[in-house]
């Protein structure tokens, strides 16, 4: 009896195994389909267990999505960090080398302390929504202060300070530009990482108007333009602007500016200016 059972089970399992592997072999030969090599490599890196925890229909679905860049490489839970790293490598090979890195800057100095608020805004508390009716600051060029940019930053590189203005943590900023897209008032801007001197205002109001409504805005007094010798500063439409292509630091202008709206900031670590100055 014992031997019989042994033989039968070995035989039946062997039979099943043989038939199935035959089917698969034939299928492998006849039904093979060509795949995008990147998807294929991504698939090979994945566990291949088709658990579905990623929300896709199996590993191949996830692999395709990753290859198309639709989802983050870290979406595979069983795979964990190791797989994520592998995937990043597979995909990363083709990413272009970045040019000069950019950093985001906040071009407004009119926080709660500086800017006059002459109306009461009631409604959805996002900048985009408040912008429809103008927000509550008298200056229509000012930062509205509900932090759409902060919410938009995918890298947690921004926060709102007590004065109601956003702040960029330059070390964390990747220059992705999401904040710029999010801001309805064009307050956020990208500049080269090694530029440290900027005009922190966007107001095109005339000087007297600005004086009345903001203690930190550009009053278009033109002192900077007049006294600077680098030619990098100009006042256009009642607002001082720096011409970065001049590649010179308008240090005098900083000194002259009565409202200190042109300021020099600490260089971003790793991006200190190398070129000789003045």
């Amino acid at each position: 009896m014992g031997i019989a059972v042994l033989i039968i089970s070995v035989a039946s399992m062997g039979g099943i195994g043989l038939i199935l592997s035959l089917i698969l072999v034939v299928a492998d030969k006849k039904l093979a389909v060509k795949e995008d090599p990147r998807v294929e490599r991504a698939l090979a890196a994945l566990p291949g267990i088709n658990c579905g925890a990623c929300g896709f229909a199996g590993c191949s679905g996830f692999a395709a999505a990753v290859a198309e860049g639709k989802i983050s490489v870290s979406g595979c839970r069983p795979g964990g960090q190791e797989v994520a790293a592998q995937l990043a490598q597979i995909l990363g090979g083709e990413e272009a080398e970045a040019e000069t890195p950019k950093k985001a800057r906040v071009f407004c100095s009119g926080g709660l302390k500086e800017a006059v608020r002459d109306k009461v805004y009631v409604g959805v508390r996002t900048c985009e929504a408040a912008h429809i009716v103008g927000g509550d600051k008298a200056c229509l060029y000012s930062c509205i202060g509900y932090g759409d940019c902060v919410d938009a930053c995918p890298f947690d590189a921004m926060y709102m300070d007590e004065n109601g203005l956003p702040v960029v943590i330059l070390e964390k900023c990747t220059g992705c530009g999401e904040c710029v897209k999010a801001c309805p008032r064009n307050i956020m801007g990208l500049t080269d990482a090694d530029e440290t001197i900027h005009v922190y205002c966007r107001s095109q109001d005339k000087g007297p108007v600005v004086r009345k409504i903001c203690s930190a805005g550009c009053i278009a007094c033109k002192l900077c333009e007049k006294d600077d010798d680098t030619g990098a500063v100009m006042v256009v439409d009642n607002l001082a602007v720096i011409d970065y292509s001049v590649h010179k630091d308008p240090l005098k202008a900083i000194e002259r500016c009565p409202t200190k709206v042109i300021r020099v900031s600490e260089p971003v670590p790793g991006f200190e200016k190398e070129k000789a100055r003045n």
Partner: protein
Amino acid sequence: MNRRLKMLLIMTLFACISGGVLSLVYLISAPLIEANMLEEERRSILNVVPGIDSYEERIEGEMKYFECKDASGFVVGYALPAKGNGYQGVIKLMVGLTPDLSEITGISILEQVETPGLGGRISEQVFQDQFQGIKTEPAVGYVKNQAPDKDTDIQAVTGATISSRSVVTIINRNIVKFREIL
């Protein structure tokens, strides 16, 4: 080696090994399992037809039953496995009957998936014991929330009328079928 041939061989090989290993394990454990099963069957039969010495499995068409004999070989009753749907799923039970099938000698719930603490209480001894001595003619019945006054009736588990009714129905149904066979 050809890749596909290798596929074939490896898979077959592993299947064979698996079959072999498993059959060995099975051969070791089979007697134990067998014994377990038999013991369980024996216990449930002894439970429903008390005081017997031996029993014998009979199969008649679709129906399986056990003929129970005392020490002298007299048929003193039958044990009848039966099943049917309860509140939530299948209920399997064993019912013991006197040789003329007019009286139940006992029942034993073998398997059920009723609500624990509710329909599940049909597995409790108190409920099963009620069936001892219950008359099967014209049919077994049930009453709710009170002591039964007929000798064919049992009292349903409180709040689980359906499970109780299912047990009764399963019993009745199988007794009727069994009568036709005998």
